């Protein structure tokens, strides 16, 4: 037992030793700021990276980063309530919580005195994130610049397998219904692919990743990704309209039901998790689906690397009677951003630092790198990358840990599809036509040639002029946050739950039963009082109007 006492005694001595070590910081001669960034980031050395060192040298500032790891809402709520603030906080979509707690200082005067570059990159759009009290409290993650927008990728759409496109010789049917008929025809001609049963369609319907099925009615009736409502240009205004019990919902799930009755809708998808979804897609036996590109990008790259025809091309398809205006306009992220806290030791210095980040040279350095090393400039002033540079910047490990700009991509940045003031170069290399071309694989070129276009986005633009830049005043409606603890937010969750229950039933309805199930669904929706549901849509409408107003009105 003596041993035990000795052990406890040692422990009692050791504990304070661990506790005492807090707060020691090497003096570097640099100005230091603590920033909490509500994003999840992998660790890499902040000192010793190309971009990090350059920035430190230019500004004399070192940032002590803290990134989010767990539940951000909890963390931000805690920071807000605690009153212990780092110098700057980026609470992401919980910025309002922080604001309500009075944790952020108004930046108006600081912008006037220390922020000429910020004023230049944001221009009039600065009004979009001015709050009702007349103050500006944060700088958004990303804002468009100027009126030009250029991107080679549509981002989302109806993804159809290249093999199917080959089979029909690169068709662009007028309606989604026609495409579905083609899928069915192809599936009947090829009942299995690599030994697996062919499915015409699938869709992830799991946790928050459920949007491929959940939002299909609005997207496939030809809308960009507003998700919560369909937003149309009606009588000179952006008008929000609930779609969940409307014709487009009825029709899209009936179309899916048609594939199901042919045995071609992948019903397993209703019980799949994300990993299984990716595994399924990588099997190559799924002909088409709706999704956003980042959700299955890893599989797409995997299949492209395998050099098969089983990867997918996004097509601008909408149900009959709708224009396929699907491409998302650039999205001014006005509802969230980085704040300077009331406990910042040196707000002026921090604002100077932010202002430096908004310099054109800094923006260029952050996205393109060093001229002559990471990119070249041709005689016309166009930036381009050599194949070696393209390959170097494809290596994510290198980009993250050696170049090291990753910690600075979540605030004070311009949309990659926007152009520098020179009007010819994209803010980000990935959207620059020459860099896009240089990175294409032969099979992708084959598809582009099949459609007679230069970029994948052009397939969309040839069908319908898009993206509609006017939408940039409010887009996207899904970032509208319902007021905390409000009846509108509860109504939204309730509607969602009813839809979640009925959508699989509708898609899997036995022959002749679809209308009965639809009527059940509508009846259940109607149990939520009309006035509550209207209030939900009306709130979204008010918020859209407010955003448009802030952006300069209609």
């Amino acid at each position, binding site marked *: 037992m003596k041993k035990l006492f000795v052990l406890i005694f040692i422990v009692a001595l050791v504990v304070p030793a661990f506790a005492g070590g807090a707060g020691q910081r090497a003096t570097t001669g640099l100005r230091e700021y603590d920033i909490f960034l509500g994003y999840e980031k992998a660790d890499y050395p902040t000192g010793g990276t190309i971009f990090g060192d350059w920035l430190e040298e230019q500004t004399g500032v070192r940032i002590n980063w803290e990134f989010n790891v767990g539940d951000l809402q909890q963390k931000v709520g805690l920071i807000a309530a605690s009153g212990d603030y780092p110098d700057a906080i980026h609470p992401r979509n919980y910025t309002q*919580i922080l604001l309500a707690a009075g944790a952020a200082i108004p930046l108006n005067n600081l912008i006037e005195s220390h922020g000429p570059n910020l004023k230049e990159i944001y221009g009039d759009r600065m009004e979009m994130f001015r709050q009702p009290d007349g103050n500006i409290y944060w700088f958004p993650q990303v804002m468009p610049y100027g009126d030009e927008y250029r991107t080679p990728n549509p981002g989302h759409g109806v993804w159809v397998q290249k093999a199917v496109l080959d089979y029909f010789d690169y068709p662009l049917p007028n309606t989604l219904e026609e495409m579905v008929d083609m899928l069915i025809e192809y599936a009947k001609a090829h009942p299995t692919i690599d030994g697996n049963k062919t499915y015409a369609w699938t869709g992830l*319907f799991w946790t928050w990743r459920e949007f491929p099925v959940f939002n299909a009615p609005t997207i496939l009736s030809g809308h960009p990704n507003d998700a919560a409502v369909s937003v149309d240009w009606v009588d000179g205004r952006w008008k929000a309209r609930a779609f969940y019990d409307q014709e487009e919902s009825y029709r899209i799930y009936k179309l899916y039901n048609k594939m199901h009755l042919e045995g071609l809708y992948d*019903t397993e998808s209703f019980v799949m998790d994300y990993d299984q979804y990716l595994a399924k897609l990588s099997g190559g036996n799924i002909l088409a689906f709706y999704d956003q590109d980042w959700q299955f990008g890893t599989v797409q790259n995997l299949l492209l690397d395998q050099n098969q025809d089983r990867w997918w091309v996004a097509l601008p398809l909408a149900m009959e009677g709708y224009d396929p205006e699907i491409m998302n306009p650039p999205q001014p992220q006005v509802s969230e951003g980085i704040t300077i806290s009331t406990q910042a030791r040196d707000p002026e210095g921090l604002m100077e630092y932010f202002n430096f980040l908004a310099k054109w040279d800094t923006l260029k350095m952050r996205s393109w790198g060093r001229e002559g090393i990471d990119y070249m400039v041709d005689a016309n002033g166009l930036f381009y990358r050599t194949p070696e540079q393209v390959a170097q910047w494809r290596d994510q490990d290198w980009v993250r840990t050696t170049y090291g700009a990753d910690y600075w991509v979540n605030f004070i940045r311009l949309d990659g599809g926007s152009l520098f003031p020179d009007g010819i170069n994209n803010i980000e290399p990935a959207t620059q036509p020459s860099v896009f071309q240089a990175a294409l694989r032969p099979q992708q070129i084959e598809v582009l040639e099949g459609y007679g276009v230069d970029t994948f986005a052009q397939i969309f633009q040839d069908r319908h002029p898009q993206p509609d830049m006017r939408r940039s005043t409010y887009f996207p409606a899904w970032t509208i946050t319902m007021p905390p*603890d409000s009846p509108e937010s*509860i109504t939204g969750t309730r509607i969602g739950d009813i839809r979640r229950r009925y959508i699989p039933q509708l898609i899997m309805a036995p022959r002749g039963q679809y209308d009965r199930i639809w009527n059940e669904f509508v009846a259940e929706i109607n149990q939520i009082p009309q006035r509550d549901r209207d209030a939900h849509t009306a709130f979204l409408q008010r918020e859209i109007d407010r955003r448009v107003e802030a952006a300069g009105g209609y």
Partner: protein
Amino acid sequence: MNPTESTFSAQHDALAPATLGRRNWSTIFRNQGVLMLMSIPFLVHLLVFRYGPIFGWVMAFQRYRPGRGFMDQEWVGLLQFQTLFADATFYRVLRNTLAMASIKLVMGTFFAILVAILINETRNRPFKRTVQTISYLPHFISWVVAANLVLEVLGPRGVVNDMLVGLGLMQERVLWMGRPDLFWWIIGWSHVWKTAGFGAIIYLAAMTSIDPQLYEAADIDGAGRLQRIWHITLPGIKPVFVILLILNIGQLMEAGFEQQYLLQNSLVMDYSEVFTIYVLRYGLQLQRYSFAAAAGIFRSVVSIVLIIGANTVAKRLGQETLM
């Protein structure tokens, strides 16, 4: 411990408070001072650390907004509780929670004891140690990983369907995870799989306190294996079993969170949504902090009522109790 002894202790418990008044406090302090020194500092610690934060319960009677002090909030009386009890979803969620928690309690306890007994009955020591070590490995696998395995095993091309179709027991592959009538049982069995080995440890520890002479005596009497288990092993672990049972009955409002959240899908959501998920989705995610607090108080009250009930029943039956 034999039955007579525990009956005696129960009676003794019942008498204690009545006799207290007649005792002389100075004698008590003299006799029990060391016991007090050994327990009261920890009691104070507990009151500070565990009861201290309970002042946050005032939130349930407010419309709490973060960033203001607890006393600078709008007071709404019992509104949050009324909202909770008026919600039809709440009752469905309550049903699911109690059902799944009960299934998990019964199956989890049964298999933990079964595993402990079988390990205890094994004489081959390397085999015994190996089984014991391996059976507790799933404890280290997070539900995120475990849920994915469950989904794969029960998927249309999973091993369960392979076997049933291969053996000709079924014509077609079944979407097991899409069956509302099976969801509770899938939760129960996956719980057993993940916790039986870990749960067995407590019972194994309890079995070490059984007097080996009892087994020897039983052997001399010619008792069979099952008789030995029934008459010696099970009574030996009964106190621990009863205590765990009472504590777990108090936990019936806790059916889990991640397990259901990760295994559920829209086809079964009427049967899968438990209280914790409900509080998250209709409370915290909508920033209804006060509503969530009211739900928390409700859960605590139910738990305490359940545990008092279970403890009373145990006492009546002359079993080990919490007090």
